[in-house]
């Protein structure tokens, strides 16, 4: 994708700006529309900077990660062989649950502070908002995954820091956060938002989770290429589907 000088405006006719004469507003908005990727970078950077200053999300996610790993190793009573086969499952389940904490905060915080309206009023393409939010979430999930990889390597004595595994983590996290950002922006409007997000998100990302776990396990066990490559392909396909879905559908979710 390239920087488009004149991104399309929201296709919905019933926008927030319709109170004013729509045609002139739209024409003016089109002139002043921030370039797509600059808007994306600005939103992601805003989230990142807020997080660097407050550290509330990453702290709770990292602590949650530690505790989940503790719970897993106590509950499963992992011996040496069991570790080898289950460590990928532990890795991904923890990433998904910790990531869910981040996702449910990401838009909920904007909504509670009232800054969501400001973001929606900004003269940017709505899908830039999606990608900005998604990249912010993706960075948090990747931090968690990195911490986990180190943690599990140390605690379970299984080397998780391998180039191929990093690739799987990257692909899996992209799919998870793309679907998660789209669905969490719906869940914030629900009555019981914290309860609804896992219910609507889990079945959608389970294909990503399954592919990621299978690929990781096969790579960790040193199986031949044929055993893990189809799963990586499946992951890539899922990523493309969810990114396209987010790009095309986010407009309709946030319009008001």
């Amino acid at each position, binding site marked *: 994708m390239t920087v488009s000088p004149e991104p399309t405006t929201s296709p919905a006719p019933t926008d927030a700006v319709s109170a004013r004469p729509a045609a002139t507003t739209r024409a003016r908005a089109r002139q002043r529309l921030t370039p797509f990727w600059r808007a994306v970078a600005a939103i992601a950077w805003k989230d990142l900077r807020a997080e660097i200053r407050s550290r509330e999300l990453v702290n709770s996610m990292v602590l949650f990660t530690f505790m989940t790993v503790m719970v897993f190793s106590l509950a499963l009573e992992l011996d040496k062989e069991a570790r080898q086969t289950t460590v990928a499952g532990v890795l991904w389940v923890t990433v998904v649950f910790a990531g869910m904490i981040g996702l449910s905060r990401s838009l909920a915080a904007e909504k509670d502070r009232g800054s969501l309206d400001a973001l929606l009023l900004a003269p940017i393409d709505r899908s830039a908002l999606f990608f900005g939010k998604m990249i912010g979430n993706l960075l948090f999930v990747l931090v968690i995954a990195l911490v986990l990889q180190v943690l599990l390597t140390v605690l379970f004595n299984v080397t998780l820091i391998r180039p191929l595994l990093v690739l799987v983590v990257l692909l899996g996290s992209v799919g998870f956060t793309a679907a998660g950002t789209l*669905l969490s922006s*719906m869940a914030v409007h629900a009555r019981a938002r914290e309860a609804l997000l896992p219910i*609507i998100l889990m079945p959608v990302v389970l*294909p990503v989770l399954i592919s990621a776990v299978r690929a990781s396990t096969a790579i960790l066990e040193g199986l031949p290429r044929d055993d893990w490559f189809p799963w990586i392909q*499946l992951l890539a396909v*899922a990523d493309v589907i969810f990114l396209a*879905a987010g790009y095309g559908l986010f407009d309709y979710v946030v319009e*008001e």
Partner: protein
Amino acid sequence: MTYSATRTRILRGLTLAAAVLFVIGLYLALFWVGPEKEQGAAQRIFYVHLGSFLGAFIAFAATVVGGIAYLRTRDPKWDIFGLANVEIGLGMSAITIVTGMTWARPIWNTWWTWDPRLTSITIMWLAYAAYLMLRSGIEDPERRRRFAAVYGIVAFASVLFTIIIIRVRPDTIHPVVAGPTQADPTGGFDVTGRIRDTLFFNLFSFAVLTVVLIWYRIRLENLSQYVMRRKLEVLSEL
């Protein structure tokens, strides 16, 4: 709540056709076609199994169509269309799962196994169950319709996953009847004779049945919304 007489006549005709086709389909599956060579009589449930999956697929694909149409036109009738399709699809895929389990008990000697195909259809079922949860969680009607349309489109990824997975994974024990597999990449259709005829007849009868059920579900929803509106009117007069 009035519909044109022609449409109602078509619906009645289709209902009758679905009932007749269904009975004939069952007769073909249970009596006309002989027992399968390896699986014996247990194989007869396969016609209902595949038929109901086709029904679920039609319904879920129509949900995507309804979702796109709603987002484009903002006509609430497309939302009712989507809801009806999801509910019928859930019922149909529940039949697929239950008949599959019934078949698996004598053939695989277990009700359930964590085979990729079985896992993926469970995910599919859960995704559409989540659709109903999402609907009930959003209060604002306009927003509920919009979110339901979006989720109905996204959830279709799980249907694609169910169909693709046994064709890319060599480790499934679930039989593949049509299309390319790892063992036979060129694809093909490996049933013949009476089994094939029975299968096609049942697929057709389930397709008709699904359409009829969706149609009735749409009318039911229209009726229930009409009752709701009338109730509000009466209450406001008091």
